[in-house]
């Protein structure tokens, strides 16, 4: 009857496939008002005056809020806007079409200020200041150090220096952000397209001085997030405040261009590196600086730091010093995007391995084999302890299973026929899981079970995976378990779905809750049968008597025995570390520079795989996002700070036509984490691994035409390829 490990289709699909899943824009309440925001066309400007006199005379306009309205309406803090799209005022109307007319009628006087768009410009002493209170544009600067990097560099046979830059990515969840809030005079309820309803509730309660018990945040179905919905955004507080003050339901849903300008961007980290290696290819020291182009507000704390601390990757490097610097610019704030610092760390170290291999004239597989960590657990040079795994074996087996060497031979064969095919691979170790997570489990009187999880799934299929985990622990059919999520009325506090932590943190919390519930029911059974029972397959047995779990639950509900029928478990989940090898093949058209991804294959040791169908879904979808980082996507600004890629017509999210054929493998001998689920997380692995694999493949293809070409930034557009090959 074991469910864990089986490719079970999702229980969530019934609603989705019938078009009945309720996303935030589908929430309808009587008397709904519609909110919208007046947003700055300038990247950097003083806001001199916001004039509502025209808009308030417009039929259908209910209210307008601006910088003069006090907290929590924190429009244009310090009297200025710092990026194009930053809100300066809010208008509330009775009708959506009236709303967009009304927004045009708010007159704002701006005094444009010089904008700073590039981190190098931002670091100059005479640079315009994004935040005057800092005195410069450096908002964060921290050094991570271990061993004796200076000595190691001195003693190295070769020292290799370089720079690698990643572009700004717009996360582009298909559902733009949106909020509905309603206040009935007693409880303030917020529906938000978010990954963090618990944080939304806390922030709104704090802003309005309400007790948490009178604020309820609901996460309806969420149409994708990828880390871009894990902060509480100002609009969530503002819409809730408008609903509270107006005592009416208020809805705001971003237009796509509004979403692109105001939902956090990702990546945009650059590494300047200097590494030392021995002649035989051992990396002795890694040093450098990671710069984050943080945008206008430092919301993306820790991105450069994660990239710095994970820079050694799966390699045994004993000396290191990496500085993590975040620089403010007049652009949309930077924050998490699927992987959040780990994709950059992996891309950087994989590029460094290739760079050193080139300098030494070594094979790219060989240099990695020489440096891989041999013994786990392993404490990396910056103090992060990788938990379990066998990297050398998984690396070799992965390359073999994925057919890396066969693909290289095939590319050689095809080259004879004039096709330019490049093959690349990447190796990664990923840090996942943090914090705590909450599960509330209730035994129902008919023998079914209700799980309320603090996880906040938005496509991962966690209702299915959690039911599988619980069904095994409770030894009951999966159909008897119903999982609810995304409502602070169910669970007091929690974190949510992000960082590949869900099944490990939330699943383990569910297992602990199930164990506690079984203990409670065993206590009740002891009272009923007069002896200590043993539980198996839904039945308690002792002294030749047996009762089913539902009989015990029913007896407790009728007061015949005492037990907790609703139990809560809060699980602290420390970090765990997936490892894997991925392979990519691309075809390059030398005439146009156009690169087509042909196939993508992954081999991951993610510990226990709860549901291979869903895990493969994460791997495939994650891979295309990383491939798109390598080849297609980039948020482009002009020198005045206008976002030139403000919607999906200009910003290139790949279509079905760009997707390669994927093959997903999980390790033959997985190394489980120490968590009750044994899982390590699969949500971000392929996004992390795919960018460096594709970059290597493109470089491999280009070198067939021009030996020695090196890629030092993403994306590699057809124009870049063409320029490199000229």
């Amino acid at each position: 009857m074991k469910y864990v490990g089986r490719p079970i289709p999702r229980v969530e699909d019934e609603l989705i496939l019938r078009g009945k899943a309720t996303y935030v824009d589908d929430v309808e309440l009587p008397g709904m008002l519609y909110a919208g925001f007046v947003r700055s066309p300038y990247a950097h400007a003083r806001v001199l005056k916001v004039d509502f006199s025209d808009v308030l005379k417009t039929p259908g306009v209910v209210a307008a809020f601006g910088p003069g309205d006090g907290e929590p309406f924190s429009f244009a803090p310090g009297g200025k806007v710092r990026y194009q799209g930053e809100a300066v005022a809010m208008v509330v109307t009775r009708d959506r079409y009236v709303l967009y007319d009304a927004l045009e009628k708010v007159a704002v006087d701006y005094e444009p200020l010089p904008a700073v768009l590039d981190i190098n410009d931002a670091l100059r002493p005479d640079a315009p200041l994004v935040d005057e209170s800092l005195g410069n544009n450096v908002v964060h600067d921290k050094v991570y150090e271990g061993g004796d990097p200076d000595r190691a560099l001195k003693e190295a046979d070769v020292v290799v220096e370089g720079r690698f830059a990643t572009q700004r990515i717009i996360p582009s969840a298909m559902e733009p952000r949106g909020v509905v809030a309603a206040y009935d005079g007693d409880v303030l309820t917020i529906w938000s397209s978010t990954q963090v309803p618990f944080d939304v509730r806390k922030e709104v309660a704090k802003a309005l001085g309400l007790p948490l018990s009178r604020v309820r945040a609901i996460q309806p179905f969420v149409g994708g997030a990828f880390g871009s919905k894990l902060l509480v955004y100002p609009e969530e507080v503002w819409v809730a405040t408008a609903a509270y003050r107006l005592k009416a339901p208020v809805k705001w849903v971003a237009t796509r261009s509004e979403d692109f300008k105001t939902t956090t961007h990702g990546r945009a980290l650059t590494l300047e590196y200097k590494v030392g290696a021995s002649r035989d290819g051992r990396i002795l020291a890694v040093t450098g600086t990671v710069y984050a182009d943080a945008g206008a507000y430092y919301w993306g704390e820790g991105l450069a730091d994660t990239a710095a601390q994970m820079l050694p990757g799966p390699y045994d490097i004993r000396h290191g010093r990496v500085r993590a610097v975040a620089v403010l610019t007049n652009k949309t704030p930077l924050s998490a995007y699927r992987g959040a610092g780990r994709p950059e760390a992996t891309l950087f170290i994989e590029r460094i391995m290739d760079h050193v291999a080139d300098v030494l004239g070594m094979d790219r597989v060989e240099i990695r084999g020489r440096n891989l960590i041999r013994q786990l657990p392993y404490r990396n040079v910056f103090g992060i302890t990788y938990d379990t795994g066998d990297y050398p074996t998984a690396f070799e087996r992965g390359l073999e299973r994925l057919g890396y060497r066969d693909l290289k031979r095939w590319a050689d064969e095809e080259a004879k026929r004039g096709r330019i095919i490049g093959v690349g691979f990447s190796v990664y170790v990923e840090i996942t899981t943090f914090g705590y997570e909450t599960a509330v489990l209730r035994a129902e009187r008919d023998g079914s079970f209700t799980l309320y999880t603090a996880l906040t799934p938005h496509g991962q299929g966690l209702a299915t995976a959690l039911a599988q985990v619980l069904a095994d622990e409770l030894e009951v059919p999966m159909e008897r378990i119903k999982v609810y999520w995304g409502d602070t009325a169910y669970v007091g506090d929690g974190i949510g779905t992000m960082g590949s932590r869900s099944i490990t943190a939330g699943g383990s919390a569910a297992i602990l809750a199930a164990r506690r519930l079984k203990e409670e029911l065993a206590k009740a059974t002891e009272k009923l049968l007069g002896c200590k029972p043993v539980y198996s397959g839904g039945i308690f047995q002792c002294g030749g008597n047996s009762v089913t779990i539902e009989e015990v639950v029913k007896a407790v509900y009728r007061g015949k025995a005492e037990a907790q029928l609703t139990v809560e478990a809060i699980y602290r989940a420390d970090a765990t570390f997936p490892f894997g090898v991925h392979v990519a093949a691309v075809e390059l058209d030398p005439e146009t520079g156009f690169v087509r991804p042909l196939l993508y294959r992954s081999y991951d040791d993610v510990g226990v795989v709860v549901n291979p169908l869903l895990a493969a879904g994460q791997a495939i979808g994650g891979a295309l996002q990383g491939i798109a980082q390598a080849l297609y996507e980039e948020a482009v600004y002009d020198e005045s700070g206008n976002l030139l890629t403000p919607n999906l017509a200009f910003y290139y999210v790949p279509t079905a036509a760009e997707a390669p054929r994927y093959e997903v493998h999980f390790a033959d001998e997985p190394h489980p984490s120490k968590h009750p689920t044994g899982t390590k997380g699969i949500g971000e692995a392929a996004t992390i691994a795919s960018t460096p694999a594709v970059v290597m493949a493109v470089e491999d293809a280009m070198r067939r035409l021009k030996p020695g070409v090196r890629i030092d930034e993403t994306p590699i557009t057809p124009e870049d390829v063409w320029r490199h090959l000229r």
Partner: protein
Amino acid sequence: MKIALRVNGVLHEVDVEPRKLLVHVLRELGYKSVRVGCDTATCGSCTVLMDGRPVKSCNVLAVQADGAEIYTADYSDEVMEKLRGAFRRHHAAQCGFCTSGMLTTAYYLVRRGVKSEEEVVEGLSGVLCRCTGYQNIINAVKEVAGL
């Protein structure tokens, strides 16, 4: 302006402003499966079948659809149910936001008698999906199309 729409076989007569988009009228009529993901007719989440052809309903004025026969992802017949089954088995939906557009487009492709994987891929390329990497959607449609 008064217009008449037949949606999934049900006749609706509505009074609309001339500037109102079809997607908004459909959503206000309760067809919430028709979703808005962009402002530029790029994402395809709002794709419906209008007189037998897939259209992005954010790019059609409601008045242009006067008298039209419209099908949305809420529709049920043998082909649509087969697609639902295949989408479920292949794990072709994740967050689900694009799924309505995928289903209506897939329905059109299957009904039209799509002949090859290339045609499936090309046919689906007007609907963006950020979660799935497309492969499972392509496989689900191929299965129902008998490819």
